[in-house]
């Protein structure tokens, strides 16, 4: 049983590592739990937002969590590739499918940034 738990834990850690660069689908609670205690800024963006270019920058990818709001994962990932280049592979991207994260942080317009 313990061995099973260890395997599951190891798998989830491996997949979490692989998931960086691709957008993770998280609820607002999951987002806050996962990055609790980290000094991160949420950068809200979407593929339909032309002016988000000024906020989705490679030099910010270390401290930013890029939140794709009301978008399609493939489109959001394409935008990160476009703006971040190689940094897109290591950047943290969260997919806010229903807009729940944006709602909790009071985001109605894009682009916008909020502390985690």
């Amino acid at each position, binding site marked *: 049983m313990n061995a099973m738990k260890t395997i599951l834990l190891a798998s989830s850690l491996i997949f979490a590592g692989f998931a960086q660069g691709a957008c993770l689908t998280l609820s607002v609670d999951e987002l806050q739990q996962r990055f609790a205690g980290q000094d991160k800024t949420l950068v809200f963006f*979407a*593929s*339909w*937002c*032309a*002016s*988000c*270019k*000024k906020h989705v920058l490679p030099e910010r990818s270390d401290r930013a969590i890029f939140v794709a*709001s*009301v*978008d*399609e994962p493939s*489109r959001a990932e*394409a*935008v990160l590739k*476009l703006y971040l280049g190689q940094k897109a592979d290591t950047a943290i991207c969260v997919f806010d499918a229903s*807009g729940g994260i*944006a709602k909790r942080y009071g*985001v*109605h*317009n*894009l*682009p*916008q940034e909020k502390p985690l």
Partner: protein
Amino acid sequence: MKYSKTVLLLILSFWILASEKLLACSSCGSGAADPVVLNPLERQKLYLGLSVQSGFRDFDHRGELRPDYGPEQQRRLEVAFAQRVSPTLFVSLDGGLGENRRGSRVKHGLTDTTINSRWNAWTQDVTKPWLPQVQMVLSHRFKTTRSVQDAREENYLDSFGAGYDETFAGTDIWFGMWPLMFGGSLLFSKAWESSTKSGRLEAGPSRKAIATLGFMPFEEWKLIGGAIFDRRGAIRLDDHELPESDKRSQDLFLTWESLLKGTDNFRFSFVKKGAFGSHKNAVLMRAYTLAWLRTL
């Protein structure tokens, strides 16, 4: 008439049921259609607009300018509410109050009520800027108030509505991913027959083409402007077409809109009706509108 309204309701219901998937960017601004547009993150929005219209003159059927015998100044308080129904569809309802003035005489009344819907058929994408946003528009204006056909006051001071129901349908295309944004709308309408004291009146079908240019000098505000080409077929009275009663006009508009990150935003619009080209049975006037929009 009743049958047509049932068809309209069925179409609206179909749109609501059909649009189950994904997003929308409704931030285009062709300006001359429904006043409230929701961006994909917005669920509800309230709109309050105050407009002043003045400088009224009429173009006759030969295109010659004549004095206007209606109000010298019109003021409108327009209230609208938009509600997102699905990620790709929202509906809005608008109506308001009007004030007509001529000299020292003033009359107040309700204006017509309109229900609007916008469905995003295709959403813009920064990685494919050559593909436009495509929206389908469907609206219905209800005859809710007195019109020039049944006005009782001299100079139509108690006239605040069109005098008939009218259904609008069309498309709105917007290239919003370039530094200079542009797009256009094409809206068609069908006016429903209405009983007036002169008889059964049916305004002709209309076709409205809107060409728009947009520019965002700063992230917090945008400027859009363009031209409206309005055409309407001849009026039918008791099934007889009134000769030379079709309409033609070209208008210009300019709109400044704030895009602040909070919940409140503002819009200022200027419209010059009968601005350029040749006109027929049209109105020459200018309108200024200041609006407040709150995202709920």
